[in-house]
């Protein structure tokens, strides 16, 4: 039985005249790896900050049954986060930062952290300021992975890192950290790098939820057709929700359409999350315009 980790009802946050969050209603269950996907200004970071109790919002927000703003101190014993890259204090050595976290976090396992670090190039005596950006993020992830938390919040955790570090980050996260019970929220612009690890996707735009569904359900519901040259018109007649040209080839996106019927017209496969997001945004925009 999955436990409700986050319950958000009509969450709103306004800055001056505009809403950064405009009525978010979602439930996140234990074991979900949820990707928050949206353009800049969609409200992803604001929503994650509200979950961490860093900002005040309107509406009813519960994280692990607690009010994140009021019970922030208690909540952070169960919730870990990396909400920016390379924010570890530069004057500290690796050992000092580990000692500090060990002293203040009741669920931090320093032996586990040292074991994770032993597989990296990070030396315990090194000052954080001499570590590369990638190693600092790796150190931060090692600390987070050694905390027995129920919820992990990642907001652009790999921004500015090269491809190798980004791949290592996510593979370590899934192979060594995720145990099926823990919940992970990830917000990133590099959607294509995380879509393989997500169990659910939350599309956001202008502070609103555009779509929230499991990857399994998305893959059943949406299909991409690359029609054969002689089937393009037939494909178009089946009313795709979106169409685009990719490397000179027509690509049509369908929602709730019979897969067998589509396979007769060409190559069929589930869409990439990034392409689906673009399509959904386009559809929403067209809906708004009309």
């Amino acid at each position, binding site marked *: 039985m999955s436990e409700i980790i986050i319950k958000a009802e009509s969450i709103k946050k306004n800055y001056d005249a505009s809403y950064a969050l405009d009525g978010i209603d979602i439930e996140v269950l234990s074991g979900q790896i949820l990707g928050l996907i949206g353009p800049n200004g969609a409200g992803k970071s604001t929503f994650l900050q509200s979950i961490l109790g860093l900002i005040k919002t309107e509406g009813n927000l519960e994280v692990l049954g607690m009010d994140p703003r009021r019970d922030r101190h208690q909540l*952070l014993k169960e919730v870990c986060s*990396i909400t920016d890259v390379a*924010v*570890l*204090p530069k004057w*500290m050595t690796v050992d000092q930062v580990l000692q*500090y976290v060990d*002293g203040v976090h*009741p669920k931090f396992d320093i032996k586990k952290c040292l074991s994770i670090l032993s597989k990296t190039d990070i030396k315990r005596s090194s000052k954080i300021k001499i570590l590369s950006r990638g190693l600092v993020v790796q150190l*931060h992830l090692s600390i987070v992975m050694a905390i027995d938390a129920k919820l992990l919040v990642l907001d652009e955790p790999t921004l500015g890192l090269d491809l190798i570090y980004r791949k290592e980050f996510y593979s370590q996260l899934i192979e060594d950290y995720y145990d099926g019970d823990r919940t992970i929220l990830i917000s990133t612009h590099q959607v294509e790098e995380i879509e393989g690890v997500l169990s659910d996707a939350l599309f956001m735009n202008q502070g609103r939820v555009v779509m929230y569904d499991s990857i399994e359900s998305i893959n059943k519901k949406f299909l991409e057709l690359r029609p054969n040259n002689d089937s393009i018109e037939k494909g178009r007649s089946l009313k795709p929700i979106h169409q685009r040209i990719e490397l000179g080839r027509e690509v049509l996106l369908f929602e709730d359409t019979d897969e067998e019927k589509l396979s007769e017209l060409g190559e069929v496969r589930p869409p990439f999350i990034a392409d689906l997001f673009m399509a959904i945004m386009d559809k929403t925009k067209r809906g708004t315009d009309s």
Partner: protein
Amino acid sequence: MTTIFFAMLRREVQEHKVAFIYAPFIVTIVLCFVIASVYFGITDIQTAEFNFSTEIYDEDYQEGMLQASPEAKARVIRAGLTVLALPVLITVGFGILAYNLSTFADERKDRSLIFWRSLPVSDLTTVISKLLFVILAVPLMILPNIILLQFVAVMSASIYFVSNDIVSFGYLWNSYFITDWFRIIFSLWAQALWTLPIFTWLMFAGTYSRKPVLGAVVPLVATVVLEGIIFKTNSIFEFIIERIGFWSRSESFPKKYEEVRVVDVPDIFLLFSTPEFWIGIIISALLVVGIVYTRSTNNDYTVE
């Protein structure tokens, strides 16, 4: 909770070891060298402001030393040893000034505030730990320097006096009380509490201002000027000056000394009986509320 405070205090020591360990230690070593040099005749210090030389121990002075009552002798030696620590205290004073201004500004500047706030430590606990560090821990950290300085001074003087047949070796040591170490530490704690409104104001400036120095100075100058123009008084300026000075020399302190002498531990408790002390504590408490609020809500990481 004790473990958390211990971890947080250790972090402060690690971060500020230059200001509160290395700098006072270097000053202490230099002073020890100067004192030993003077006593052993290597050098005399003769400046317009300061005159220290073994030449001062002329025959009249030596006679005076031998004739002095034990109480008078103890008073002079204790006062001398206290004055000796002033350069160390002034060094640490500058360190405390810089610490208070920068401790909350630096964490915004390097964005480590995001990391600190991702851990289960409340803003109030963080602020209290920093105050405990600067009020309680820093005086304890500099005490060994003062003890070393006093030890070198008394030892050098004793060797000098013995080798010149002035007095016996134990003459000075009879007036050097180990219990004075406790007096020094209690006195420094009292000083920190007396100056607490200044400490907390500087910390507050570090939490809200992009330019902490200006953020600390400009509002105070503006308030002092406005008070002068509107009310034709200067009570805020006097309050600030009193708080920067020694607590035992403040106008509100009930016990006045006509001569330079040290204050004893029971004198410190007199400070707690003054309304001015408690006014300072209340102002500090209000500023702590301001620091906690601003630290938890200020997402501006632009600090110069």
